[in-house]
């Protein structure tokens, strides 16, 4: 993030948007708690943190569809009940985008 910021001189990060999969082992509450402390005194100080959580999506070979799981306690297709092992989404831990303020007045 600081790298991207360097490309925009005088800019300030207003918001950081993350994408976190249900299987990323990230506790959103803890992340939010640490955010303020971790960013204090850095270029990201004062920036809002917005976390988008992504459910697990599997490909069900039995019914040929991509299906969203309700939780992470059973990896079975919610439509046909067959076990699924093709994970399409759920392990993400990424910075989606950042919103920056260029420091220039609107005009």
């Amino acid at each position: 993030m600081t790298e991207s910021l360097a490309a925009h001189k005088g800019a300030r990060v207003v918001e950081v948007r993350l994408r976190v999969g249900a299987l990323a082992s990230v506790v959103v509450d803890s992340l939010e708690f640490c955010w303020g402390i971790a960013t204090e005194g850095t270029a990201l100080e004062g920036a809002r943190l917005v976390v988008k959580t992504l459910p697990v999506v599997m490909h069900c070979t039995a019914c040929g569809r991509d299906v969203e799981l309700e939780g992470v306690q059973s990896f079975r297709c919610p439509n046909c009940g067959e076990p699924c092992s093709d994970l399409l989404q759920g392990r993400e831990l990424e910075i989606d985008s950042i919103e920056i303020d260029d420091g220039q007045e609107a005009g």
Partner: protein
Amino acid sequence: MTTRIVELRRGILKKNDELAAGLRANYAAAGVLVLNLVSSPGTGKTAFLERTLRELRARGARAAALVGDLETDNDARRLAASGAPVRQINTHGICHLDAEMITKHLDGWELGELDYLFIENVGNLVCPSSYDLGEKIRVVLLSVTEGEDKPLKYPTMFNSADAAVVTKMDIAEPCGFDRELALRNINEIRPGIRIFETSAKTGSGMEAWLGYLEKARAK
């Protein structure tokens, strides 16, 4: 105030993932099968690995191990008794191994002279699941003294594993281990995964495990 959105779409563990991809390419080029062993503390990773190293060496295979712990080189000394080359990685408080630690500790080892490299991760069922070490096979271990519902409690780890090993089968009965339930729970989180029921003490189940390793290496 004018603001704008800068799309990054950048993985937070990108640096680790890139290093792991480099390691994976090196392992493949050297023809060494690399396995990452993960479990809770006390499951018996070291005892299982001691027996695996000893039996592989008895079969003429060249096997080595990297072993991660917060402190001490006790496990490296235990594993080295098998005669295999072993290196200890002390993480000094970090609860998992990452690709950079592996890269650093492989320095000076000729991977082409190995058939198998085992990486014994720090005992922890959470963080190691997020760090790719470039391994071909991630092995999750579960002992009969732990709850049969461990796969349900740590779904990320069990779901990301390629093989599962149940350890300490020799004491399954006195522990009241519900085998059917444990196997069902593993399968619920990782359908179709290969499961080995073993005892490092008696050697039961080791034959199937070694056969699996040999087959995986030949692939």
